[in-house]
């Protein structure tokens, strides 16, 4: 018997040592997995943008194009979370080791229960303390900061979301490039105003011939590029000829193009094969840009134009520095000498940059992250501007179940748009049809299918569906829009007897399955393009919407000789589309911009595609 006890004690010692080392050798494996999870996060999440050019599917595939508020990565917060969890893991480890040693004492000296309960309380206390530190840290960050007194700043830094891949405006798609360069570095024959109307730029005026097939543009006097080269009619002609000959970005939107000629040094004539009502608006974008025919620069990293700014420095995916162009030809000079555009793919990082004063303006800011700035009216201004982003819930018109018009109508009646908008922060606008308020032909169509679940249920009954035999539909959309919209739609449609299976996929999967193969019941995507009604007149587009009347009306709109006729035709076509319910327009996304008090002249409307900066000025608060 004594021998046995001895043996046990001996084993105990070995046991304890072994256990200690076991713990340290066993742990690294799960830990390694932890760190993998964290490291993998940024790369996997930051996969860019999700916009679809209605007119150009391949442009959408290229990955850049616009903004979504919902999809974003949140590395800092995730890291924080993992640290939090891992902290607790460490506690358990230390604790278990502790307990092993204590077990020795307990066994020899009898049970000390209080100590063990203390351990549990310690775990709880640590967890609670960590939680409190969280709360306090975030509360602290809102503390006011001291600002230097002074006059207008020489440099204004602006935070944006999507970075251009390179600066080649002729070959690189993506609205971030339009946003940064058009109106700042490059100028077009004409330009767009903040309410999406055509205004003079290089051409000070223009005349359209009565048949609508020819346009005469009169150019401004004494224009030059930022390198000193003279800008005249020959540069305009060369730029548009090059565009059409080489098929640069936007060439496919310049329809019915026949020829462009220089009448004299300050007059240009553009001829069309047939009238094209959107011509001027198109020329205000990339197709109308005027480049220096004698300029020799590397288009990917530099930009040479006639605008108020020049590119001083370009760091891909990070920042673009613009400097005022000393030789700018127009009377109004830029208000700020240097403007830095900084790109944040991570929403939280962007918000922190605004809080710390690293940037003065942030556009867009996630509506859900905006409340601290809204409350701090002493230091910040928060405002929303109109945009042409349409969140389109497309219902496959050739789909097995959704080809039934009653089903599509029921879905439109079943969706409570105001609730969706409220949950997103309330800045967005309801949209009842395919044309947003900044586009020609807009009309408030929200009364076509107002929220009415009873009517929806009645339509579902007529279509042959009952609670015992509900309709099953699948909704396919890209993960960058977040899971909330899908969850809400499922909840709202469940109320009228539709079982919605939400399939959140990679954006590339959406492009393949929905846009290319038309394999879907319901799809959700943000169509951000302006003047994109053409997609409803195209039966081959993924909507599978084929209505002869709509196609005729759109055709008439495009050949109409004045804007009023065009708008009338578009309005009628849009109403027709809305009534047929090939889709539901969840809302018209509006851009929210947050800026420090003291920033003026920053455009709010459309600032993700068009961001003229020459009026931006920042006077730090005293």
């Amino acid at each position, binding site marked *: 018997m004594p021998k046995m006890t001895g043996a046990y004690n001996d084993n105990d010692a070995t046991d304890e040592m072994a256990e200690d080392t076991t713990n340290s050798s066993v742990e690294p494996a799960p830990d390694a*997995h932890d760190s993998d999870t964290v490291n993998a996060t940024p790369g996997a999440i930051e996969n860019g943008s999700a916009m679809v050019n209605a007119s150009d599917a391949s442009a959408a595939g290229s990955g850049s194009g616009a903004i979504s508020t919902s999809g974003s990565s949140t590395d800092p917060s995730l890291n924080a979370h993992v640290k939090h*969890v891992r902290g607790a893991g460490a506690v358990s480890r230390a604790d278990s080791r502790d307990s092993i040693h204590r077990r020795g004492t307990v066994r020899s000296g009898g049970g000390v229960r209080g100590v063990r309960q203390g351990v549990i309380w310690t775990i709880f206390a640590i967890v609670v303390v960590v939680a409190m530190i969280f709360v306090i840290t975030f509360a602290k960050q809102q503390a006011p900061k001291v600002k230097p007194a002074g006059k207008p700043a020489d440099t204004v830094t602006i935070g944006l979301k999507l970075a251009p891949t390179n600066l080649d405006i002729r070959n690189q798609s993506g609205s971030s490039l339009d946003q940064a360069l058009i109106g700042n570095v490059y100028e077009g024959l004409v330009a767009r105003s903040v309410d999406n109307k055509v205004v003079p730029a290089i051409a000070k005026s223009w005349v359209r011939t009565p048949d609508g097939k020819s346009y005469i543009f009169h150019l401004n006097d004494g224009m030059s590029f930022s390198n000193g080269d003279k800008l005249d009619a020959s540069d305009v002609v060369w730029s548009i000829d090059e565009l059409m000959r080489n098929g640069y970005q936007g060439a496919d939107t310049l329809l019915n193009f026949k020829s462009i000629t220089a009448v004299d040094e300050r007059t240009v004539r553009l001829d069309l094969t047939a009238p094209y009502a959107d011509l001027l608006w198109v020329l205000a974008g990339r197709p109308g840009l005027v480049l220096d025919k004698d300029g020799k620069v590397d288009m990917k990293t530099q930009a040479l134009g006639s605008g108020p700014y020049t590119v001083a420095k370009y760091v891909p995916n990070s920042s673009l520095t613009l400097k005022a162009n000393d030789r700018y030809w127009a009377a109004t000079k830029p208000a700020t000498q240097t403007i830095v555009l900084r790109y944040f793919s991570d929403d939280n990082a962007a918000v922190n940059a605004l809080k710390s004063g690293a940037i003065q303006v942030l556009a867009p800011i996630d509506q859900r992250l905006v409340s601290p700035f809204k409350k701090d009216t002493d230091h910040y201004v928060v405002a929303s501007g109109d945009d042409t982003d349409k969140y389109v819930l497309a219902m496959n018109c050739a789909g097995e179940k959704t080809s039934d018009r009653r089903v599509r109508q029921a879905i439109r009646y079943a969706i409570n748009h105001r609730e969706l908008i409220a949950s997103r922060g309330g800045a967005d606008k309801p949209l009842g049809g395919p044309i947003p308020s900044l586009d020609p032909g807009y009309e408030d169509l929200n009364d076509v299918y107002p929220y009415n679940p009873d009517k929806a249920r009645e339509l579902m009954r007529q279509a042959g569906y009952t609670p015992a035999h509900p309709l099953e539909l699948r909704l396919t959309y890209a993960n960058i829009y*977040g899971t909330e919209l899908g969850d809400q739609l499922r909840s709202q449609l469940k109320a009228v007897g539709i079982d919605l299976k939400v399939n959140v996929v990679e954006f590339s999967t959406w492009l393949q399955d929905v846009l290319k193969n038309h394999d879907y019941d319901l799809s959700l995507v943000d169509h951000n393009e302006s003047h994109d009604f053409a997609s409803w007149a195209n039966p081959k587009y993924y909507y599978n919407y084929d209505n002869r009347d709509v196609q005729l009306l759109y055709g008439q709109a495009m050949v109409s000789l004045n804007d009023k006729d065009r708008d009338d035709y578009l309005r009628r076509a849009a109403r027709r589309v809305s009534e047929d319910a090939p889709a539901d327009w969840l809302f018209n996304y509006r851009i929210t911009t947050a800026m420090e008090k003291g920033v003026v002249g920053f455009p709010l409307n459309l600032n993700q595609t068009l961001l003229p900066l020459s009026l931006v000025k920042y006077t730090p608060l005293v």
Partner: protein
Amino acid sequence: MAQHDMLPAETVHDGRLGISDVVAGSCQADAVGPAGAEGSPQGRDSSPRPALHTPDEPVSLKGLGKLAVVLRSMWSQGEGRFALVVLACWIVVSLASIVWTPKKLWETDGYHVWAPPSADHLLGTDGTGADVFSWLMAGARTNLLIAILSVMLAGVVGVTLLMAMVSRSKMVSAISVVAVDALISIPTVLIALILAVPMGASIAVIILACGVGYGLNLARIARPQALLAAGSDYAVSARASGASGGYVLFRHVLPNSLPSIMVQLSLSAGTAILAESGLTYLGVGVPSGVPSWGHSLSTSVKLIDVYPLTVVWPGLTVTVVVVALNLFGDVLRQAIDPIVNTALRKVAA
């Protein structure tokens, strides 16, 4: 040999009837276990002494008594009590959520999103206006399922590999050791991302990735101990007396590796829950609309700056459960170890 195959239980039982020397012998063989698990058994003078049988016993009435003893000794320790209480709550909540949650899971309310805790919503609401408490309750059962299935798969994969690794065939053991060493370098997350390509986001991805990944770990960690047992004198004697390879494996090798397998499995359960959160955040885990703690975390973690409380609840749940699982493994290992747990010896004797 035929005799062994036909009457294994009886043979063991005969051994059981032996004197205290036998018990001491078996205990010592067992005590080598942790040293083996450490991975460097050479450094210690711990060659196992011969044993006539394993400490394990076929399930019988005594088995139930043993279970009670094990539970009681776990309960008597603070960590064990904490682990048992948390795990019991977890199971009860999971079962309850099947029939009842305070609010319907699909109920959303766009006018009351990110609401702070109130009488109506115990833990507030999330970004769709759904009840966080209900989602956490329902998430408990998804996570329970994931933990159980991952651990089962890890056990099957791990034990299979373990058997290959300690096989007497040089080729099989060499190949499997190299294979495990190579495969163990692939992170679980990577396995999941690869699996997600054909399978999409699904619970099966998590279970497969965790099961395989942790199974490899298990085999790697239990191998030294299993090797010791396989090379021990009692295993050699068993074989000499005509026992088949399978008999030696299941009678001697596995039971001797059991303590480290147990710890590793319970650690795996905890890690599987962490992995679920991580993978769901990456979009390859639990699909949208299926409640899980990872889902609750990933939908709210983006807004931790603005609504920190909403993130804290699922985070706290995961933390507490994972801590409980880790403690559970630790305490269980002690409780089923007849050397440490004197009460168990009494039942066994």
